[in-house]
């Protein structure tokens, strides 16, 4: 045993293996693998769905301060209705405070940044016509420069009360007017991308948004 611990499996000898044996082996291997994959998918499905929902909820609650519950709204046949969006179907989230009063919409938007697509979510209040919060969900902007669009608290705070009419404008050296955002030094392109993405989303959405009726706390919203 000590001389040769490595076992030679019959493969070096010239044994002929029948085709059915090969097919059977692969079929059994595939079958077992399939069962294992379905098993792990089922076992983790709930947790994964829960994680995704919580992530989205956290983001919506951040960009719409003061809300307590939310509902997904889809734009279908010319109007905004409550419902789950199908893939590629445009949707926004309506937020309500603890007494069920409608507060505003959280609008997802995406567009090209300096490196890759930037995906963000921003909150919009219809009563004041202002953006009340912005959060970048996905981006691959340059660390140290472009990533300031979500790491620089001053830049993020520019979106806490921002007029959307007549369009958001990027400026340098301090924002003054209600619709101005101060660009990040050294990350002009990324800042400009964020403003452009929001302006484009506004163009697409603002005319379609309608005031929502308040909901009474009957647990209708996703809590």
């Amino acid at each position, binding site marked *: 045993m000590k001389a040769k611990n490595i076992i030679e499996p019959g493969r070096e000898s010239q044994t002929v293996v029948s085709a059915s044996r090969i097919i059977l082996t692969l079929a059994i291997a595939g079958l077992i693998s399939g069962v294992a994959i379905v098993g792990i998918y089922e076992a983790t499905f709930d947790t994964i769905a829960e994680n995704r929902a919580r992530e989205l909820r956290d983001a919506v609650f951040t960009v719409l301060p003061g809300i307590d519950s939310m509902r997904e709204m889809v734009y279908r046949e010319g109007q905004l209705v409550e419902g789950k969006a199908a893939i590629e179907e445009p949707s926004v989230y309506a937020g309500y405070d603890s007494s069920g009063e409608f507060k505003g919409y959280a609008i997802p938007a995406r567009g090209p940044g300096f490196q890759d697509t930037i995906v963000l979510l921003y909150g919009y209040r219809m009563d004041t016509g202002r953006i009340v919060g912005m959060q970048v969900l996905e981006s691959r902007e*340059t660390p*140290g*420069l472009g990533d300031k669009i979500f790491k620089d608290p001053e830049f993020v705070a520019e979106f806490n009360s921002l007029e959307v009419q007549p369009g958001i404008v990027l400026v340098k050296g301090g924002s003054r007017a209600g619709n101005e955002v101060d660009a990040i030094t*050294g990350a002009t*392109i990324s800042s400009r991308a964020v403003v452009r993405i929001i302006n484009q989303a506004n163009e697409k959405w603002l005319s379609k948004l309608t005031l929502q009726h308040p909901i009474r706390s009957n647990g209708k919203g996703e809590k």
Partner: protein
Amino acid sequence: MQKHDPQLLLQHSPILRHDKTTPGVMLDVLLALSPVTIASIWLFGLSAIVVLAACISGAALTEYFFTPTSKRRRILLDGSGLTTGLLLGLTLPPALPAWMAFLGGVVAIGLGKIIWGGLGSNLFNPALVGRAFLLATFPNAMTTWVEPAGSFWNLPSSTLSLPFTLDELDAVSGATPLGLMKFEQQGTPFLELFLGNTAGSLGETSGLLLILGAAYLLLRGDMDWRIPVGILLTAMLFSGALSLVDPTVYPTPLFSVFSGGLLLGALFMATDPVTSPSTPTGAWLFAIGIGVLVILIRVFGGLPEGVMYAILLMNAASPLIERFTQPRVFGYDREDSS
């Protein structure tokens, strides 16, 4: 007839003996750079001295430690490390922390030269390797420019930041002419660019002194005139064509040539004999490539300045250019019909 080996890239004879030595050429380059160096100290004060000294000492120390003891004397005395350090220093912003400049010198010699096998074997211009590393590593500090201070005792606190830290960058930061052009469509008067009283890296501000230095090198025969002439002509023609299309968006040819690091790069870096093609046709191709790339990056790219990347990219292409532009060997047919 014996087939000549296409793998072996050798310059054909006649090869002449020449009195020129590496230390001699390097001394010429240092002399040619001295007006710009003095001007940078004049404009930016003590901080220029600190940054340049840090670069040079980083380069020299790396050269010393990674050279076999037996060759140390010869290699250190040939002055190529000193030249690399000085050239790197001249491309850096004046308020850069000294430790970053030192690190740049270490990288320039370590990754730009030693690792390839020393002087003559490197593919890329060492000073630009150092600068590319610094720009990718410290994008903030490397893109913060200050206006010339006008006082010799000027020493921004960021220059003396402790290693691994960065003091608050100087509040009176100025935008470079190229930055103004790119992001605010705002030009800078030509005379200012020519004399050098603008924000920018240490050695790139004064066009006049750079041209003076280069003229000295040309007179001494240390420089292939085709490369700077080719780069500057291409850049002028290309940006001239663009500004004819829309003069409000695209800069004028004179602005293109005298702003940013184009003169410094074209006159002193692209002409590095190690990293540029040695054949005349090759030199033209190399120069045209740089000129086009510079304007492409400046006008259509995300960055305001593209001289460094343009030269590094063409450095990478120069062995290929050299291969395609080998002169016909005397006595052989045009077609390789052996």
